[in-house]
C-alpha cells in the first residue's frame, strides 16, 4: 500500500503560494460528516447537485423534497429548505410545492426503491403532467437503508440480500428502466441518466443536472436525472471495486446518456 521511495507530502495544512480550486464541501452542505457507508456514491451525487444550484444562482429559490432511503440523512445536512416526504411520495409533494411557488426551483431526491418501487405511479404521473419540477434519482439497484434487498431496477444476475443466487427473470421478473420509461412521456422535457463511478462520469452527470434545472427554469416541463451510484455494501463488493461492478452490471442495462431533450 505504501509506495516505498515516494516521499509523502504534507497535506494537513493550507499550502503556501497556492490558490484553492476545490472546496471540501459545497456551500449548501452544512457538514462533511455522514453515516453512509465507505465507498457510497450518493454523496458524490449530492455534491454535484448542490454545486449546480449554487452555480445557477438559484440557491435561495430552491426547495428540496426528500424521499426515504440512505440519502434521507442528507435532509438534516443540506442547507436547503426541505420537505421530508414519505417513501415514494416526493413527486406529489413537489407538485404541491411548485404549484404554490411557481418561481421556486423545486426538486426531489429519491432512491430507486423509493421512486421505482413504492412511488412508480407518482413519478410517472408527475412527468406526464409536465410538472415543472426536477426529480433526481439515486439508483444503486438495491434498497440500501433497509439492508440491500432487490428493487425494481436490480438487474438480472445481480446478487442482493434476497436474490443471493442472482436475480432470475423467471422468479423475480425484469428490471424497469425508469429513465427510458419516463422519456416516453410527452410531459417530460429533459431526461438523462448519468453515473458517479469515476471523475469523468461525475463531471458529465453534473452537466446533466445543470441542463435539467435549466429546463425547469425555462418552464419547459418535467426534468429528470437518474444517477447510478455505487453501493458496495449492497453489492457485496469491496469499496474499491464498486465503480467497476457498476460498469459491469447496472451500467450495462441502465445505459448512461441523455435520453430526451426538448430543444
Amino acid at each position, binding site marked *: 500500500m*505504501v509506495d516505498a521511495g515516494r516521499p509523502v507530502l504534507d497535506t494537513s495544512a493550507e*499550502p503556501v*503560494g497556492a490558490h484553492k480550486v476545490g472546496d471540501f464541501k459545497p456551500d449548501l452542505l452544512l457538514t462533511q460528516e455522514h453515516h453512509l457507508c465507505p465507498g457510497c*456514491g450518493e454523496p*458524490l451525487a449530492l455534491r454535484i447537485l448542490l454545486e449546480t444550484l449554487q452555480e445557477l444562482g438559484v440557491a435561495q429559490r430552491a426547495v428540496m423534497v426528500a424521499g426515504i432511503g440512505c440519502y434521507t440523512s442528507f435532509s438534516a445536512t443540506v442547507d436547503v429548505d426541505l420537505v421530508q416526504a414519505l417513501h415514494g411520495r416526493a413527486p406529489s409533494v413537489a407538485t404541491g410545492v411548485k404549484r404554490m411557488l411557481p418561481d421556486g426551483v423545486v426538486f426531489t431526491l429519491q432512491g430507486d426503491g423509493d421512486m421505482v418501487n413504492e412511488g412508480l405511479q407518482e413519478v410517472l404521473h408527475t412527468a406526464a403532467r409536465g410538472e415543472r419540477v426536477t426529480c433526481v434519482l439515486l439508483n444503486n439497484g438495491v434498497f440500501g437503508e433497509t439492508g440491500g434487498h432487490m428493487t425494481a431496477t436490480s438487474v438480472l444476475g445481480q446478487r442482493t440480500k434476497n436474490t443471493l443466487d442472482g436475480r432470475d427473470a423467471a422468479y423475480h421478473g425484469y428490471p424497469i428502466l425508469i429513465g427510458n420509461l419516463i422519456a416516453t412521456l410527452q410531459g417530460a422535457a429533459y431526461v438523462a441518466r448519468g453515473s458517479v463511478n469515476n*471523475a469523468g462520469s461525475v463531471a458529465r452527470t453534473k452537466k446533466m443536472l445543470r441542463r435539467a434545472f435549466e429546463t425547469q427554469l425555462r418552464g419547459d416541463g418535467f426534468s429528470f436525472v437518474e444517477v447510478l451510484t455505487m453501493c458496495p455494501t449492497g453489492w457485496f463488493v469491496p469499496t474499491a471495486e464498486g465503480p467497476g461492478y457498476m460498469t459491469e452490471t447496472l451500467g450495462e442495462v441502465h445505459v448512461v446518456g441523455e435520453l430526451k431533450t426538448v430543444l
Partner: protein
Amino acid sequence: MTVVRSRGTVRIDVDTCKGCELCITACPPRVLSMSSEVNHLGYRYPQLHPGCTGCNACRDVCPDFCFEVYRFDAPLLTEVAE
C-alpha cells in the same frame, strides 16, 4: 534523483476518511496511496506524493468530502529517488 513537478496539491481531512480508496484509482497521475496508519475511526487514509496536478478528481469521487484542492502559483519541485 529526479525532480517531480507538482502543479497542485491537496489538503486531506484524514479524520473524515472511511478508507474506501476510490481516490486512489481516480487520481490520473496516480499520486495518492493509502497510509499504513489508521485514523480515529480505524480507517487507513490517503496520502499525497509529488506530481499532483490539482485536477479535482479525488475531490469529485470522495464520498466523505475529504479533499480540498489547490493549484500552486509556481510549480512545487520535489526531488525523488529513481
